[in-house]
């Protein structure tokens, strides 16, 4: 581990509990690099996570860390941020955690435009419980609860976030680690609700059940399918079919909830 990022880890808690080849560690690495570049005060930064493989991330990080209940990370984080707006609050959540059981909290946190930096570890599956399909599992993909292929349609999470009112929305993959760091930095600088969806590889469940090969093969898949908006523009509809855009997808300004509340307090005080 690079010495400049060591300080952000609880080294005594490592090695982590994730499977060999899991993408989650890559996200963590990009996250702490972003925090380092942002020069955030470690004592005034809180990591809030839900339940799942992804959500275990909080325990490895040397900040105030809150490992909550399944799906509720954003609701706990809203409490932390609203009570103490001066804290930097990051939310680390899985695709199931955020979009299934936590879907309601997700759209409402976005609607409030509360200043939380939310990183969704999207491995397209419920990893921790052994590989059941999630609202982010693509149609026809296999999971232990869709043995004949998934009949449901997945969310377009970034579109959902935009529609709900998020003011910074981006997507990337665990292949594009430098971009991930940059997006976290930009997302954190946004004064409002920021979503960074990270397509990550779960070789143990999603990869194995869908015959995606080794972790390296899954990373190559990400490299070949996640493309910039500019490249996407130049593709014909057929070529676009299995591609997705990475980078900043949406950026706007809107009143931030805790700031608006502060204004109210000042007006009344």
């Amino acid at each position, binding site marked *: 581990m690079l010495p400049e990022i060591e300080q952000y880890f609880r080294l005594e808690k490592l090695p982590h509990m994730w499977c060999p080849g899991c993408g989650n560690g890559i996200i963590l690495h990009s996250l702490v690099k972003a925090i380092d570049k942002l020069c955030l005060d470690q004592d005034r930064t809180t990591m809030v996570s839900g339940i799942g493989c992804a959500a275990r991330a909080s325990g490895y990080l040397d900040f105030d860390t809150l490992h909550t209940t399944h799906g509720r990370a954003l609701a706990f984080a809203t*409490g932390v941020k609203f009570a*103490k707006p001066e*804290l930097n609050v990051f939310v680390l959540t899985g695709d199931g955690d955020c979009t299934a059981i936590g879907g*309601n909290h997700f759209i409402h946190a976005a609607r409030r435009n509360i200043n939380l930096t939310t990183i969704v570890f999207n491995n397209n599956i419920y990893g921790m419980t052994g590989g059941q399909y999630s609202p982010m599992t693509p149609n026809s993909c296999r999971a232990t609860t869709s043995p004949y292929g998934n009949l449901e349609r997945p969310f377009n999470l970034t579109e959902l976030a935009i529609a709900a009112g998020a003011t910074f929305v981006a997507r990337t993959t665990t292949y594009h680690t430098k971009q991930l760091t940059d997006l976290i930095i930009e997302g954190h600088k946004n004064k409002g609700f920021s979503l960074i969806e990270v397509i990550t590889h779960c070789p143990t469940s999603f990869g194995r059940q869908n015959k995606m090969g080794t972790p390296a093969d899954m990373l190559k898949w990400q490299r070949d399918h996640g493309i910039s908006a500019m490249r996407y523009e130049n593709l014909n509809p057929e070529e676009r079919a299995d591609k997705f855009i990475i980078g900043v997808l949406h950026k706007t300004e809107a009143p931030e909830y805790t700031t608006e509340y502060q204004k*109210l307090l000042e007006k009344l005080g």
Partner: protein
Amino acid sequence: MSTEPRLIQGNEACAEGAIYAGMRFYAGYPITPSTEIAEILARRLPQVGGKFLQMEDEIASMAAIIGGSLTGAKVMTATSGPGFSLKQENIGYACMAEIPCVIANVQRLGPSTGVATAPAQGDVMQARWGTHGDHPIIALTPSSVREAFELTVRAFNLAEQFRVPVILLMDEVVGHMREKVTLPQPGEFPVVNRVKPTCSRENYYPYKADGDKTPPMACFGEGYRYHVTGLFHDESGFATEKPEIIDWQLKRLHEKINQHLDEIITYTSEETEDADLVVIAYGGTARAVSRAVKLARQEGRKVGIFRPQTIWPFPEAAIGELAASGKKLLVAEMNYGQLLLEVQRVAAGRSEVHSCLQSNGELTQPDVILTKIREVYEHAPGN
């Protein structure tokens, strides 16, 4: 605060009691008959620099207050039956992670949506066992407007002292009833704040407790950089599956309450000394019972009333004493017999235990209770 008596509702007394106790963070979702608490606090909290948040549902409300509490704020939420059900998972989280918070449940008739505006006391056992797994709980139950204020303050004091969720088990009668009360002045009532660590970050073990079993609690953002989880954890706060540590933690969670039962449990008893029959009642029902007991006394029957203010932990010692004295016991409550089960358990055959139960959306009337008193009083044991 004004020294003039004011005509206020139980729900308003609860809101004012919370502010008096130092509560500055509320998150909730509206539901009858608790909604006034939210409405009053939406107006009052910003006036005193506090935070009011209407969340998207009760699960989120419970989560948000736990987050708020971790930053050092005194926090509360208020709800009623259906919402109380939704809060249960995160109430368990607060038990496990030892997060001070107060949950007011203004009971209404259930199950399910039931009748939104009808009084009931059907959540007594849910308050005790609503969340999964073994856990201790504190629940207080007021029976007047003044007491709604006092027990709300007490609920915060206990939550802060023991780092636990405390349930304020109100009912529709007490929540909506109006009475003239003079609210206490600042300083008149003790207000307790949680103990914070004084040691350095290196020496801070968030779940290491001394003799009283309640560990000091650091605030997020103050440099302690610690971990909080709903998983079983060791003194450092990190997850463990070691049976001996699980055993240590679960025992400590219970001991921190059980070692302090004398402080936590309060009740009132009137005319029980010479009584042959003691009626046990709480909340709204206790008001009708008081009236019935008075009438029974006028008829020459030696009847008293025992009224728990702390419903959980159950006032086992006091009720055990009544049972040991051989007095007949009559439990009156607006449900199908929830506290009754506890009284029967504690009486353990030492005294007769009777009941006057009603769960039809109406407050039990004094004459119904009086009729039951006469019946039980006249009846020889064993008949």
